[in-house]
């Protein structure tokens, strides 16, 4: 049994890992904006950004510079403190969720285990749901502090949408937690070795979770909060410069994290079937684990974008109908089916 590292090495390692996760989240989000525009273009038979650098690869950098250089306007009628707090909070909560994601199997250096996870909270699932809920405040504060009816409408829509879909999401997660028997993300990931991915046991749960994830990240077809045809820009109407950038950027970080969560919950996390046959060295296993994990994440990010450029936006009543009258009953049904099955399995098979 290898020991988990401790002492000063522990602190240094954790700091390095936290900074790495932070940097990777930002990097992936930056290139997700590029990916979004490229995929949108390809799905519409266009080319997309291709002027900044080869294949337009420096586009995120150019966008970032543009965002910083733009004039910053804070409306005089706005509540200045809350106006600044809004996007900051949204960004912070988006970045906080990365802490509990297990990015890969443990590294083994000098007989000590280095887990590729910033912190393995034993209530990781609850932590995730909690932080995501706080994210709503960013939008709400931003919309409210702008003192603009469109911003307020957008913020209202965002908060009501997120609150409604959190219930269905929570219910689908409860079913998952009952199947896995743990709230720790690492344990959930570790259980899904070989082909025992949770998607096999929880197909309906995954569908509900996926739809809710779309709604939680404010992605199309659930992008009513920033519905430009009705609300100008929604909650970020009054925002300019990098504050607007933070709002837009957090959306991509949220997308990245929710893809990571979906991969961990339902698609085996860093596990890949049959990888153990070819690779036995734990460090190589960790390397491939991280690669597979990011492959899954990228697939989900692509799916998010693919859906965005296929489906039109919901109407507000349709959104509420789907959330309250379809997804929540479905999630309860899922729970009702899963519970007796687990009882049956425990009773007869004696796990």
């Amino acid at each position, binding site marked *: 049994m290898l020991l988990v590292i401790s002492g000063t090495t522990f602190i240094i390692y954790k700091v390095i890992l936290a900074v790495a996760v932070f940097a990777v989240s930002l990097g992936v989000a930056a290139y997700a904006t590029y990916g979004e525009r490229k995929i949108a273009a390809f*799905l519409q*038979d*266009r*080319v997309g950004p291709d002027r900044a650098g080869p294949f337009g690869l420096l586009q995120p950098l150019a966008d970032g510079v543009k965002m910083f250089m733009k004039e910053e306007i804070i409306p005089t009628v706005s509540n200045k403190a809350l106006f600044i707090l809004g996007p900051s909070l949204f960004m912070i909560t988006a970045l906080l969720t990365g802490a509990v994601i297990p990015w890969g199997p443990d590294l083994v250096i000098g007989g000590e285990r280095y887990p590729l996870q910033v912190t393995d909270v034993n209530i990781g699932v609850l932590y995730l749901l909690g932080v995501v809920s706080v994210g709503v405040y960013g939008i709400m504060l931003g919309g409210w502090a702008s003192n603009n009816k469109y911003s307020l409408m957008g913020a209202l829509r965002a908060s009501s949408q997120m609150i409604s879909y959190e219930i269905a999401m929570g219910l689908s997660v409860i079913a998952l937690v009952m199947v896995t028997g743990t709230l720790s993300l690492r344990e959930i990931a570790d259980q899904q070795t070989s082909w025992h991915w949770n998607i096999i046991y929880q197909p309906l749960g995954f569908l509900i979770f996926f739809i809710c994830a779309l709604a939680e990240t404010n992605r199309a077809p659930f992008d009513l909060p920033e519905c430009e045809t009705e609300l100008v820009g929604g909650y970020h109407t009054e925002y300019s410069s990098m504050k607007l950038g933070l709002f837009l950027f957090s959306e991509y970080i949220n997308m990245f994290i929710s893809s990571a969560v979906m991969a961990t919950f339902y698609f085996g996390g860093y596990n890949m079937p049959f990888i153990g046959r070819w690779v036995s060295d734990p460090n190589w296993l960790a390397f491939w684990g991280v690669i597979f994990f990011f492959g899954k994440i990228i697939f989900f990010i692509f799916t998010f974008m*693919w859906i965005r*450029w*296929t489906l039109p936006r919901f109407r507000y009543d349709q959104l509420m109908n789907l959330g309250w009258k379809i997804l929540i009953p479905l999630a309860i049904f899922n729970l009702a089916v899963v519970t007796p099955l687990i009882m049956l399995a425990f009773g007869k098979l004696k796990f």
Partner: protein
Amino acid sequence: MQALTKRSKVVVNKQLSFVEKLYLPAILGGMRITLTHLFKKSATVKYPEKKRAISNVYRGQHVLKRDENGAERCTACGLCAVACPAEAITMLSAERKKGEEALYREEKYASVYEINMLRCIFCGLCEEACPKEAIFLTNRIVPVEFERNDFIYGKDKLVEPMEKDKRIDVSIRETTEVAEFKKHNEYGHNQVWDGSKAIDTKKKKKAH
């Protein structure tokens, strides 16, 4: 109620079947369609590097022609400006001085000739109105500028260069009638005229 036309359709509020109510098959169908577009060739032409093939009689940037000897054909009659529906053309006329015969074909010429390329709709009516075969539209595209004023093209940009090899060929734009007319050398309009002496207006009248 009796239908007024045969084309009218009765609206049916058909109840959706269970599968249709699920929406998921329809959504997956839509996603399949968008995915096929991922592998299609893009329709984009990357403009500054690649140019779309345009017709030979494309109506682009104007040219003010010189005659065979390099004298400007325009006499500042103003018919193009009158014909212009966008009122993009303005000009000032001047009288030709002694010694300028090599520069201007007739006694009167345009000292200032301006076309506002932002107003121009490239209809080609100026070309049709011109009695002197002085203005033509060419298949050149008006380049992009950063200032509005830069789009007002003066004679420096409009008049074709003096050098024979740099002249802009517009023969493709002639209709068959014009080509036929130009074969008749007896008309003063068609006479090749050596720069040293002015066209003999009396002779021109006689020819007509």
